[in-house]
């Protein structure tokens, strides 16, 4: 249990909200409380580190492969037919 100047959070609450924390989807107050807790808690930090690494690996699957030229050509042909001047 940690007492901070903002909100005290126990390990259960922190782990339960880790993904929303990593996604930046919590209130500023909750973000601060979790950040403070993680800085001090040896028990929660490995879990946080694992989830962060996992999400980074998922994000890295974003392949920058462009749409094939054939698709691009078909799209442009369809748009020209509909009136777009490209």
């Amino acid at each position, binding site marked *: 249990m940690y007492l901070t100047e903002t909100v005290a959070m126990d390990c259960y609450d922190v782990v339960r909200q880790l*993904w*929303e924390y990593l*996604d*930046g*989807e919590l209130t500023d107050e909750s973000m601060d409380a979790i950040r403070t807790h993680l800085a001090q808690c040896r028990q929660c930090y*490995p*879990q946080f*580190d*694992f989830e962060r*690494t*996992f*999400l980074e*690996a*998922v*994000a*890295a*699957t*974003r*392949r*920058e*492969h*462009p*749409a*094939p030229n*054939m*698709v*691009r050509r*078909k*799209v442009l042909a*369809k*748009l020209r*037919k*509909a*009136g*777009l*001047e*490209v």
Partner: protein
Amino acid sequence: MTGITPATAPNRVDTKRFEVEALPWLDDVYRFALSMTRDESDADDVVQETFLRAYRSWHTFEPGSECRKWLFTICRNVFLRLRERERRRVDYGGDDTQLEALASEQESVASVGAHADVLSHVDLGPALDRAIGELPEVFRSAVVLVDVEGMAYNEAASVLGVPVGTIRSRLFRGRRLLQESLVVFARDAGLTARDPCEV
């Protein structure tokens, strides 16, 4: 004459705006379409139809709003229509309730933290790629929009036409399913010790 009614045919200025604001997202729309269809030919059809609809509806696009999100929403709707037509080709036949119940059974990934080393030392790209592709579509869309495309929960909710709470639930369960797949992958590859209970 193109046969398009004046009400739906963008004027010349709008046409230029469409070219500048919408067309640059073609690669993103293609990637999103491919993540949903998992088939290049279907993605091709979805992308063409998406841009045609977007062009014809360009007057409904609010200047200053996010064009990529608007295109993704159209893309998603086009995909749903395609899926309806070709239901046999899609492996998802249940409703959200069934899928989420299924996922919640697998929600607990025991000792997941013990596999942290695997994540940081092994290239999981191909395994993750495959695992994302194998997720039920409702979870895959949430994971792709938030984790791969970097959208906020409310943006993904807007694209998929569901409440933010639903995105959160689908996203978290999709992630748990991915972690479950990675644990299996790591065990099969001999990267972690086998669960003694399995022996």
